[in-house]
């Protein structure tokens, strides 16, 4: 339970955020937090690959792009029903994950990193070529998806994202402790042994890859609705890199890691850049210090202190 505590505290804090924001910068802050929560969802899905399976995907942002463009194109074409959009997003994410996963998962280590990068970049260039939908400029959404009135409530979108974040966190937390999760964790350490125990590791990893892809796809669809704007940059390698950074920053394979990592990433970036335009001069060294002096990421700081 201890490892989960920081995440739970963060959730309580997030739940109260719209209230707190009344005193602290208003809708600007809730917008910021919404983005952090979406980033956390994407990071949670990536940590299923990195932390649970030991698979470092450098093309995970491809799924963000899939979700965002599905939402963007659907809404532009007049399909605003949220369930339909999420359905299509999940369908395409599954398909893309099955095809690219089936190829990538034959490799491991650096080869896996680079081959996932390749697929991510292919998708990035595909989105950039979609002239009808803004090409490189991106696509402005003229309305949000219709969520059966949910988004019309004050903070409706906020609590939708929050609810999904908590649900996905719980889901993945359970998954990690399930039969399936134990197989993945063991295969990360010794996949040969798992094969000889009777587990077709490839199938388990592919399933995990698909699950991670679907969750990231949902995060992408949320991004489109939150920002009301999608662009190919969402699926570029820089974004995949950001996701890895968030996961490592928070603590790979730690229950609270991705959530802490995402919150810290967004808040630090925002806080520092409001101090100076050259905020990277501070942020860069800060990352180095975190690596050198906080092994295991931010989550480990909390764990150690409480232990």
């Amino acid at each position: 339970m201890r490892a989960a505590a920081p995440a739970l505290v963060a959730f309580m804090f997030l739940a109260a955020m719209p209230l707190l924001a009344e005193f602290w910068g208003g809708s600007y802050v809730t917008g910021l937090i919404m983005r952090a929560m979406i980033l956390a969802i994407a990071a949670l899905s990536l940590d299923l690959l990195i932390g649970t399976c030991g698979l470092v995907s450098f093309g995970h942002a491809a799924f963000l792009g899939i979700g965002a463009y599905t939402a963007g194109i659907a809404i532009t074409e007049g399909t605003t029903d949220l369930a339909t959009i999420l359905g299509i997003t999940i369908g395409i994410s599954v398909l893309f994950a099955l095809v690219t996963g089936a190829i990538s998962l034959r490799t491991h280590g650096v080869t896996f990193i680079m081959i996932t990068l390749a697929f991510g970049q292919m998708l990035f260039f595909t989105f950039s070529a979609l002239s009808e939908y803004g090409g490189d400029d991106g696509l402005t959404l003229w309305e949000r998806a219709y969520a059966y009135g949910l988004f019309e409530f004050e903070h409706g979108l906020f609590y939708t994202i929050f609810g999904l974040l908590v649900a996905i966190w719980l889901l993945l937390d359970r998954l990690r402790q399930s039969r399936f999760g134990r197989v993945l964790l063991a295969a990360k350490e010794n996949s040969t042994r798992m094969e000889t125990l009777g587990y077709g590791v490839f199938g388990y990893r592919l399933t995990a890859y698909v699950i991670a892809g679907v969750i990231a796809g949902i995060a992408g669809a949320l991004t489109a609705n939150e920002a009301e704007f999608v662009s190919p940059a969402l699926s570029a390698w820089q974004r995949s890199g950001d996701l890895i950074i968030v996961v490592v920053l928070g603590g790979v394979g730690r229950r609270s890691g991705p959530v802490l990592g995402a919150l810290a990433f967004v808040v630090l970036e925002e806080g520092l850049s409001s101090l100076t335009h050259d905020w990277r001069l501070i942020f860069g060294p800060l990352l180095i210090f975190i690596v050198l002096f906080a092994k295991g990421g931010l989550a480990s700081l909390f764990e150690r202190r409480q232990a």
Partner: protein
Amino acid sequence: MSSTLLLIQLLNGIQLGVLLFLIAAGLTLVFGVMGFINLAHGVQYMIGAYLTVWFYGMTGHFGAALLLALLAALALALFLEFAVFRHLYDRDHLDQVLATFGVILFLNQAVKVIWGPTPLVISPPEFLAGTFRLTENLNYSIWRIAIIMIGFTVAGLLWFLVTKTRIGMLVRAGATNAGMVGALGVNIRRLFMIVFGFGAMLAGFAGSIAAPIYSVEPGMGDGLLITAFVVIVIGGIGSIRGTFIAALLVGLVDTLGRSTITDILKLFLEPSAANQIGPALASMAIYILMAAVLFFRPEGLFPAQGRRA
């Protein structure tokens, strides 16, 4: 397409390949020998270019600027190695990624603060600055030819260094089995420092000689870094020969792809459709190449382990 055009594109492809090789050679050695993923390697390329322009402004002599830039780039690399990187060698790859990413952020911004956001330009040394006539109305830059020749010379030297000298032998052994080299009583720390400094200097050198043809700007090394990673995994990590061949391959595929794919598509597609799909496909070409190579040969074309002594 005319034969002159093809010739130019071949030359351009080789020239890009040579630059990629200079960057990727250090990357593959550092990665192969030390198992260290250095994302900040691309920044070394940028630093090399900036320092060259800077020293050129001070000395007014390209050769002198090049030399000074190399020394300064080496000094910076060794400082970074001492201050940051050496604490990361026995850490997880992901920790290395995070920390070296921090170095990129810092140096890109620092360069912008020091030299401003506007691209800088520099001319090649006087005697290589001209062009020579390829066809009636087409000239080709001598400096580009010079880059190709310099690149091949460096590749040759590197080959000699790695295959014929003691330190090269250690490096090769290290690429196959780092633990064993340590067991032989070699000072691994020092070997690492030499390999690292040397690799960084090569990248800086690439930046120096690229400065006259590309504009010198903050973040100029980021895109090339990713391409260099593509090169080293295609070539097989730790293999100089593989890196050289892969660099030329990637340079040629990228250059020829960009100039021919759209035309080829135009043969059986509407021009507007071809213009939309062609450039996107051309941008993907090297990634498709990489995915294909890795699919059939996950260890790359010339894995270091397979090399004969």
